[in-house]
Structures are given as structure tokens and as C-alpha cells.
């Protein structure tokens, strides 16, 4: 009845929730901004160049797409988020043309070609990262030590994940100890912080925190730009969760699946016992948490229904563990998310009917 013969277009509701797609992409980008600062502080100019190349190329690509489709979507901020996310998967000293090309691929091909925002069937940033892995595999594995750890710029090193996976016989069954034994660097900051924490908190409780975790949390180890700022990243995640901008089911299921497998099957050290895996180490490395909170939760490429979303998260966690333990890219969490992006529509189509109330199912 409402719209029947009204001269004025009813167009209700007249008020909306403050959340909008545009605001959400800006907020996500803002939450990642501290990561930029942190990584530039750790790695200096080369890191800044990577960010600049990735975001700049995302902006230009978005403008091109807008010009081709004659609309103006730059303001909705999704290019920025894509640019930032592409850069987070890059090693700090990579040649700037690689992030630039990956961002351009993400926005021109994955997003532009499939009809713009909301239509892409995989997360453009992850597709961009995968594009880089496939085309420049060597460059994507070329990590360096942060300046704060080595004292010089650009000292090459392998990431703890790669190292831990490739350690031969060491006699150690805990990752951190194995890493120490094989001469893996440890920052002075870590020793003093860990010492302080042990004295103040853990020892009175009868526990002891091994050295090395602080380095992981603070990014004092070789790794991608996104990995370098675990603590700020967690702060950003808390913002996203408290503003209810992401489906919490996805990161939770992802972490649960991954942590469980990591606990049971461990890191892959020879002689490691079952059920003694180092969960903290596993979660803290390889950009896993970044992917869990910022990449897998991209609404466009993840399932809408919450229970399907949980399953989706769980599958990513499992795949990610498999890739890390047995794949050739220990940092390949983005492949796990990408695969699930692609499977997600099928998953939804198959599972959706089962979730409907029974009365409706029989009626339909």
C-alpha cells in the first residue's frame, strides 16, 4: 500500500546504521596504517618504497578503471586497502616494481575486469600477492634482517619459518631452542624484555617464557612487511572487532584449526613429539594473524552466513597449516585464503539449503 500513489518517493528508511562499505574500507586501512610506520622504522627507506609503489599503483589503477567505466569509486577507499594488503605480503627489500605490478594486477584485472567492487570472486589483494609469488618466486623469498637487529641495512637472512622447517638433526624438540642452537640471531631487547617478564610474571607462577617470542611480536626477525608489526596488528584487530566490522567466526575458526594442528603435529622438527607443538610461535609467524583478521574476513569473498563462515575459516586454518608444514612457501597463508575464496560460493550454494528451518525446506 505504502508506495501506491504517493507523489513523493517514499524511499524509507530515512536513517541508516553508521557502518557503510566506504567507511569500513577506510577504517580497515587506518587500522593498518601503524603497520606501515612500524615497518618503515624497522627497515628504513626500502620498506617505504614498497608501500609507496604498492599504494601508488593501486591508486593509479583505480583511476584507470574508473575512467574506463565512467564512474568515480576512488573515494570509497577500497583501492587503498588493496594497496596496503598487497604490500604487507612483500619482503622489505623487494624491487618496487613487483608490488606495483601486483597492485595493478589486483585492481585492474581481479577487481576491474570482474565488474568492480562487490563482484570480485576472490580477494584482489591476495590475488595480487599470489601473482607476485608466481612470477617472482625468488624475490618473494628474499628476506633481510631488520636494521635494529643486524646494525646494517639489507643483511640477507631466511625467515624463522623456513629455517625451522629445514633444520636437520638438532636434538632439540622445541622450535625456539632449535633456532637458538642453529645460531639464529636474538635481539638484546628480546633478552631483556623476556628476562623482565619472567622475573615479574612467569617465574612467580612457576613458568618460564623462552627467549625469542618478543622478537616475533616486535618484528625483530626477517619477514614480510605485514609480519613485522604483530602487536600493532593485534591492536587494529581489536578495533575491527569492537566496531563489529568483521565476522569474528572467521578468524576464530581459522586460529582454532591452525593452532590445534600446530599443537598436535608441531613445526616439523625431527624428533618432535606429538601434541608438543609450539602454538605461540606458529601463530606469530608468517603473517598468519594478518591474514586471519584482515584478509580472510573480506566480506565480498567470504560466505555471508555465519556458520558457513566458521567452516570457511576452519578450512583456511587447516590448509594454511598444510602449506606451511609441507608446501614450498611457508609464508603461503595467502594461498590458503585464495583457495577458500574460490571454493566459498560453491560451499555456500551447497550448505545454504541445509541451514534453512525445516518447515521452509519442505515448503520450498
Amino acid at each position: 500500500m505504502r508506495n501506491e500513489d504517493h507523489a513523493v518517493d517514499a524511499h524509507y528508511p530515512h536513517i541508516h546504521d553508521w557502518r557503510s562499505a566506504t567507511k569500513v574500507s577506510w577504517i580497515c586501512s587506518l587500522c593498518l596504517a601503524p603497520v606501515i610506520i612500524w615497518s618503515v622504522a624497522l627497515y628504513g627507506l626500502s620498506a617505504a618504497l614498497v608501500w609507496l609503489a604498492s599504494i601508488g599503483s593501486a591508486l593509479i589503477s583505480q583511476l584507470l578503471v574508473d575512467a574506463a567505466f565512467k564512474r568515480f569509486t576512488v573515494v570509497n577507499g577500497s583501492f587503498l586497502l588493496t594497496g596496503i594488503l598487497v604490500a604487507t605480503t612483500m619482503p622489505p627489500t623487494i624491487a618496487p616494481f613487483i608490488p606495483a605490478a601486483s597492485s595493478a594486477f589486483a585492481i585492474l584485472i581481479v577487481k576491474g575486469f570482474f565488474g568492480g567492487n562487490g563482484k570480485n570472486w576472490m580477494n584482489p589483494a591476495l590475488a595480487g600477492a599470489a601473482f607476485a609469488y608466481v612470477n617472482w618466486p625468488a624475490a618473494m623469498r628474499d628476506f633481510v634482517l631488520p636494521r635494529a637487529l643486524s646494525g646494517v641495512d639489507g643483511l640477507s637472512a631466511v625467515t624463522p619459518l623456513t629455517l625451522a622447517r629445514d633444520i636437520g638433526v638438532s636434538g632439540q624438540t622445541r622450535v625456539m631452542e632449535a633456532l637458538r642452537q642453529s645460531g639464529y640471531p636474538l635481539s638484546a631487547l628480546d633478552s631483556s624484555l623476556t628476562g623482565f617478564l619472567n622475573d615479574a610474571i612467569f617465574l612467580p607462577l612457576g613458568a618460564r617464557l623462552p627467549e625469542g617470542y618478543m622478537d616475533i611480536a616486535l618484528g625483530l626477525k626477517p619477514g614480510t612487511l605485514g609480519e613485522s608489526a604483530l602487536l600493532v596488528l593485534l591492536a587494529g584487530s581489536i578495533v575491527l572487532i569492537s566496531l563489529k566490522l568483521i565476522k569474528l567466526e572467521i578468524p576464530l575458526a581459522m586460529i582454532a584449526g591452525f593452532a590445534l594442528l600446530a599443537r598436535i603435529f608441531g613445526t616439523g622438527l625431527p624428533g618432535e613429539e606429538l601434541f608438543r607443538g609450539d602454538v605461540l610461535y606458529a601463530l606469530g609467524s608468517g603473517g598468519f594473524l594478518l591474514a586471519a583478521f584482515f584478509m580472510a574476513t573480506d566480506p565480498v569473498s567470504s560466505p555471508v552466513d555465519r556458520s558457513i563462515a566458521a567452516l570457511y575459516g576452519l578450512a583456511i586454518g587447516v590448509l594454511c597449516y598444510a602449506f606451511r608444514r609441507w608446501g614450498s612457501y611457508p609464508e603461503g597463508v595467502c594461498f590458503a585464503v585464495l583457495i577458500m575464496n574460490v571454493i566459498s560460493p560453491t560451499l555456500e550454494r551447497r550448505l545454504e539449503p541445509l541451514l534453512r528451518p525445516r518447515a521452509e525446506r519442505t515448503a520450498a
Partner: protein
Amino acid sequence: MMSIRGFRRGGVTLPQRMAFSHDPIENAFLPIHAKLTLRAAGSGKEARLLVSEGEELREGQLIARADGKGTTNAHSSIPGIVRRIVRGRSPDGTALNTVVVSLAGSFSISGKRPERYIWKSLNKTDILHLLQEKGVTQVSTGIPLYDLLHGKKDGGPVQLVVNALEMDPYRRVEEAILIHHPQELIDACDILNKILKPESIAIALDAGLQTAYIDALRSHAKDADLKIGIESFKRRYPQDMPQLIERALRDKRGAAGSMLCLEPSTLMALHEAVVSNKAHIEQYVYVGGGAIKEPRIVKARIGTSLGDLFEECGGFKGLPERVVINGPLCGSLAADLDSPIEKTTRSVLALCHEETHSGAEQPCVRCGACVKACPESLKPYLLYKLLIAGRANEAYDLGLARCTSCAACAYACWSRLPLVQLFDRHKAQGQNHAQ
């Protein structure tokens, strides 16, 4: 401890944008010109006009007589002279005949003291006749109260629910009536009790209401020897929809029979008609929104223009983005500031951008906010996609017909999609199809 009702899933929590006030409800100034429309919202027919231009009118004088089901008597809300009879617009822009009355002469009704129990000597038919005569209309729907009660009178058991729930951020009119006029409300229930003989009477109210007010209602009910249940509801839109109240209460009682939901403002009109012999010429209206200087509830004469009300409430302090009649969720845009308030106008709002959060439509980002908001467990994003793709049958299979047009999904939508408009359009087409 009283249990608090609410729905199992769905709904949206809206920000409360109206301060609770203990102040009594003021009468608005009489308008210089009252524009009286001859048809209630939602009805296709107009009442039969009885007056002509130049005629002198008393306050409350009949100007148009009901012409069959769906129409009500209309009365002059002010004493004065019929200036013009024009084809005008209702607040939401519907074209209809309008009688413009210019204020003149003296008041006949305003000063008279009502006699509280005069109705006790009337029988059912007399009371119903009185309601018809005085043009009393259900404020929330525009259905003439006579039609509503006449239909229920001998149609099996009835549960009467006084619906004082207002879940939109700008309305506390019914609650204010509950607070300031408990006795009138209980008397109105008593009158309805006489007409309908309902199986039960319940007052549905906001769980946040202070217990002192509830106690007042209880004691008045006790004095009147009425058994009235109090049902508290969680504050969550769209709990105030009769269907949802019914569902919540039915879950509890499993009661048979039909449920009749009436708002306190309707009961006040009923009370004034029966006890004070007064026509439905006044309306409790909340005048507010972020662009208004002194938002408040006023009791205004029907036919007062929106502009007059805004002026009385201090005028604009900012530029309103839209002027909305009857609530920001399901209400309609006002055609212009000259449009008058009607028997169904419960609020007029001048909203600014900070409140509307309006934005350009974007493609669906699959955020799922609409699914979370829908109290009917529908998947609005999917329905939207199917309807756009011309697969209406599948949308109906997924329950499109259950949609109550509450607009909770469109409120929550991250992409500002016109979800509920599309659903409305298809449901209207579906109905035409069925007929």
C-alpha cells in the same frame, strides 16, 4: 522479577535520540489556518463533504461524513470560517481534498469539564456509535476505530494489547501518554472491556520504564476493577510491530483468538470521544530531529502545518537533510512544510546528515548485516539478488512473502541498497497477481 520479552533473532538496536522527559505534554498553539484532509492515510476513499466555502464553523463541528467502510467523520479542529476547499496534499504527498479553515470565533469545547463515568450508562452500540460519530481513528494505521471494533465485536475471543512500545529513536509519545495519563488509559481500557469483552488485557511497554509509572497503572487498574497484565519488552526495533508483539505473547500464552493492538494515543482519542464527547481533532506529535532547536512532544490540532510546529519548537538550528513524517524507518518524506498533520501523524522529524548516514548506493558487499537484522530470518541480500535477476519465484520460495517491510535490513545495509523498496514493489505485484 518480571520477565522481559524480546525476539529470538534479528532486529536492530537503534541509538536513542530523544531525551526522556517528565514534563507534562503541552498543547501546541492553534493554527491560524487549519488544513483538514478528508481521508485517512491508507484508505482509498474520502468522506462526504458537508460544508461549503464561507461557512462559519464551531470547534469540533462535523465537516465531512463517513461514507462507508474505511472512511471517518471529519471535524473542524478550530473554530473559524471555511476559506477554501482545495485539492491539497497530505503530509506524505498523497493528493486529496482539503478544507482550509481560518481561525475565528470562540471556543466551545476547550473549557468544559468532562464527566468521568458518564459512559457507564451507555450500552455497547451507543459507544460504538459515538466513536463513529466523533471520527476516532486508529493512530498507527488510519483505520477507523469503529470499523476495527465492529469487526471484532462478535468475532470470537479477543486479546486486547495496549501497545506503548516505540522502538524508533525519535518516538516516546506513547510512553509519555502512559506516564501522564494513566487514569484516562485505564478508563479507555475499561470502555473497551465493555465493548469487546476481551479475554485478556495487556499493556506492552519498554523494559526501561520506571517502575513507579507501572505501579501507577496497576493501582488505577485495581481501582477500576480491571485485570491488566504488564508485559515488558526489550528495546529493539521492530519490536513495536503488532505482528511481533503478537508472536512474543503467543509464545507465552499459546492463546487462541485474535489480538487487537491499540496505541495509547488511540485510546486517548477514544477516551475523549466517549467521556468528553470530543471529536478526534487533536493529535500527540513528537516534533524533533537533529535540526530542531527545542524538540518536544506537543498535543497539536489536526490541520496544523509542519512549518508551524517546527516554528513552535524553536525553528531549525541546522539545515535538515530530510523532513520525515512518522518515524525515520517506515515513515515517509514530507511533501513540504505547508502540509498539515493528520489523525495518523505521530511524529515530524527534521533530520540532519549525522542522523541519516545516507550515502550513495553501492553494489552489495555481502557483509551479512541485513541477515543479522531481519527479524523474520530472511536473507535480504539473497532476495534482492534474486529479484534483480528476475527470479521472483525463487525469492518467494525463500520466504519473501513473510517480509513485514520493517526496513531493519535496509537500515543496516552497508551498501545503502533500497532493499525494502524492491521487496514492497514485488509484494504489491504479487498481490495484484493473486487477485
